[in-house]
């Protein structure tokens, strides 16, 4: 009776999960029709949403497996881990918004519709007010005058040189000298208040949800959160979330009137560029591991399980790959891709698609150079596992090798895979900046932190110093990598049995 009931509940749970996934997928496929645009599905977009799809399934699976959900709860019990998870999810949301691409319809006739040339993402649309208006050249954060002097002719016909007003930033000010500070302060206050209201509303909704699930009254829940009496550190979560929301609201509100992080050489808003770079960083950090994972797991497990000549061959492959300096391998493959794109221009319609292929190629080649470490770790672990009694027993009972590997070995090495994946993420995001300097990173037209830092390097020689694009790219990259590092530490502490004594 109980078992049946549990089965029924279990089924209901998966039905719900698949319903949500199906709904999300349909939405992703039919939104162009709903909003009357032409959807553009770049390869990296599809892979990213495939990853999200897998992640949702993974989370749903974990919630029903007590032995997996306990260490995950352990991860989120840490205050640092919880707040870095909040910061990470901010980056992920921006990255996902930037991964839905479409084109507007310009003219619509019965027979043929023509689409606009520009490919936009949801992020572009929500920041439309910035990206549409660009200045002529550099301007400092919150500046209303340009960085470079220009020629003017005054009323008497005399030529003189002065700093021109910016086209976009501060154009609402009539008497800039008197109104400037007052305007910035009043706008900041307004932005901060908007942020506070949003975060209070959000917290209220969250507390309401928590009071429903934990069967407490609303006030009790609030009190318990403030005293940090819950199992998970919700107080820290809400504080971090509020800080993120208030900061965002302030920046977004002010960026309607000023360039909050200045503009770059061709007058593009640096705040916009930094936000656009998030997607590139996330793609390199996640898709690389997604691509290398099947190979690393399959080869590592096979080498450890079958031993003998299989092990020899696999070991030979990864020692060979390992002994080539990684950077040279990356360079060679990236050059090959460049030539391939040049020889087959018909395959790629737009510059964005070309850049997208290069981004994907970079992920693949970074994956090729980084899978060997995981492969070796897995091989060693499987060596140990295959001698254990339960696997010997399975073999004695005649269970096939394939079955043993998939249901006994792989689940027991997944913690290693998880740890390596999260530890690799931050390293890959950092590697992108180095590769951009060497000149083999993402396509120069792709907006990325590496490209921003690389071009900002030369701007430091100017006088006055153009520091803002370097600092903005650096601080966003730093925030993402730091959050990822702290979060992966928590994961390692929770999942790595070797680390349990060490703390």
């Amino acid at each position, binding site marked *: 009776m109980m078992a049946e009931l549990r089965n029924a509940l279990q089924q209901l749970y998966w039905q719900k999960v698949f319903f949500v996934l199906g709904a999300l997928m349909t939405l992703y496929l039919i939104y162009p029709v709903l909003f009357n645009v032409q959807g553009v599905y770049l390869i990296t977009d599809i892979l990213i949403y495939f990853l999200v799809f897998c992640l949702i399934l993974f989370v749903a699976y974990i919630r029903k497996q007590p032995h997996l959900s306990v260490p995950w709860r352990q991860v989120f019990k840490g205050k640092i881990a919880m707040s870095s998870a909040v910061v990470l999810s901010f980056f992920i949301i921006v990255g996902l918004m930037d991964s839905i691409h479409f084109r507007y319809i310009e003219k619509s006739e019965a027979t043929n519709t023509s689409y606009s040339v520009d490919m936009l993402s949801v992020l572009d649309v929500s920041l439309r007010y910035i990206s549409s208006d660009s200045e002529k050249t550099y301007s400092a954060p919150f500046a209303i005058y340009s960085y470079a002097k220009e020629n003017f002719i005054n009323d008497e016909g005399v030529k003189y040189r002065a700093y021109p007003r910016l086209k976009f930033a501060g154009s609402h000010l009539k008497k800039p000298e008197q109104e400037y500070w007052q305007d910035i302060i009043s706008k900041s206050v307004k932005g901060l208040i908007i942020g506070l209201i949003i975060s209070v509303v959000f917290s209220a909704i969250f507390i309401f949800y928590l009071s429903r699930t934990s069967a407490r009254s609303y006030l009790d829940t609030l009190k318990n959160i403030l005293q940090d009496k819950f199992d998970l550190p919700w107080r820290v979560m809400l504080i971090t979330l509020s800080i993120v929301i208030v900061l965002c609201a302030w920046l977004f509100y002010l960026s309607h009137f000023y360039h909050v992080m200045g503009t770059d050489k061709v007058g593009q808003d640096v705040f916009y560029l930094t936000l656009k770079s998030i997607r590139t960083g996330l793609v390199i950090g996640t898709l690389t591991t997604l691509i290398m994972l099947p190979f690393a797991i399959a080869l590592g497990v096979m080498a450890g399980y079958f031993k003998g000549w299989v092990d020899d061959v696999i070991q030979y492959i990864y020692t060979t790959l390992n002994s080539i300096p990684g950077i040279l391998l990356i360079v060679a493959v990236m050059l090959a891709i460049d030539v391939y794109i040049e020889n087959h221009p018909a395959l790629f319609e737009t510059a964005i698609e070309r850049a997208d292929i290069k981004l994907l190629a970079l992920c693949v080649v970074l994956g090729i150079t980084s899978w060997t470490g995981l492969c070796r770790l897995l091989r060693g672990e499987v060596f140990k596992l295959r001698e254990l009694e339960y696997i010997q027993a399975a073999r004695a009972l005649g269970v096939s090798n394939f079955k043993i590997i998939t249901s006994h070995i792989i689940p027991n090495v997944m913690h290693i895979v998880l740890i390596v994946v999260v530890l690799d993420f*931050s390293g890959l995001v950092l590697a992108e900046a180095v590769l951009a300097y060497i000149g083999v990173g993402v396509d120069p037209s792709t907006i990325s932190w590496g490209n921003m830092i690389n071009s900002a390097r030369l701007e430091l020689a100017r006088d006055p110093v153009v520091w803002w694009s370097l600092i903005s790219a650096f601080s966003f990259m730093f925030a993402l990598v730091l959050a990822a590092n702290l979060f992966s530490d928590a994961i390692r502490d929770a999942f790595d049995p070797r*680390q349990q004594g060490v703390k």
Partner: protein
Amino acid sequence: MFAYISRRILYAIPILIGVNLLTFALYFLVNSPDDMARMHLGAKYITQEGIDKWKTERGYDKPLFYNETEQSYKKLSNTIFYNKSVKLFLFDFGNADNGRNIGFDISERMWASLAYAIPVFLVGMLVYISFALLLVFFRATYVDLWGVVLCVVMMSISAIIYIIAGQYLIGKILLLVPISGYEPGFSAVKFLILPVVIGIVAGLGSSARWYRTIFLEEINRDYVRTARAKGLSELRVLFSHVLKNAMIPILTGAVVAIPLLFMGSLLMESFFGIPGLGSYTIDAIRSQDFAIVRAMVFLGSVLYIVGLVLTDISYTFVDPRVRLN
């Protein structure tokens, strides 16, 4: 020992052949020998004879991997791959596309690379290990906590940022040392200080934290408890007991890196204008000089394999329980 080493050297041969095959395949996937000739002769006024002449002079006029016109074993040996690889195995790197002898260039540029890499390696190890020991000495206190936080923060900063910030602060604002450049001999010191310091600082976060976990794994062992029970001071325990026993994992990471010091650092050398092997490689990549790239890849793999063998040998010195067979 001797048998072990000779077996490892025999193992190295198929790996090096594999490395060579891979570099060849990757390079000629991109550029045919005709393209190479065209690029090096300049884009204009090139006749097919000119290309053929260039190819014959440099030995690129044969098939890549398999020569159908020849007999028996010559089908394999009379090819670009065979001719170019066999010389590599004898460490005869041939000439670069601009006519200079690669072996001579490498032996000349090696010293600049070493002048940068050896101080970074030695001083770096010293700094990282002492910082880690300091954290372990103050374990479970605020010193340890904030030390680890510092490590994580430093790990999260890109190497490029360290270089840019260091060059800007010390070279441009404080005007203490030149930003970049190099002079051979003793005056190299003033050019090397900045890159060495930046190199060490850039690696501090991850290395110190890694050494710290190694030491912490040792510190809960029985022999440490015994040593403390004997009444030895905590410093004595750390430096003469824990450090000695932690040498194996430390060696695994360190000894592999020693031969690769010859290769220099791509990033630092090209940033600071040190004329070492790293910047040599980058220049070769940028000018698409395949002969140099191939030589450097080969050298890199040889040194890597030497590093692996050295690691195994060094185990026997540190840990008498380990025997090579």
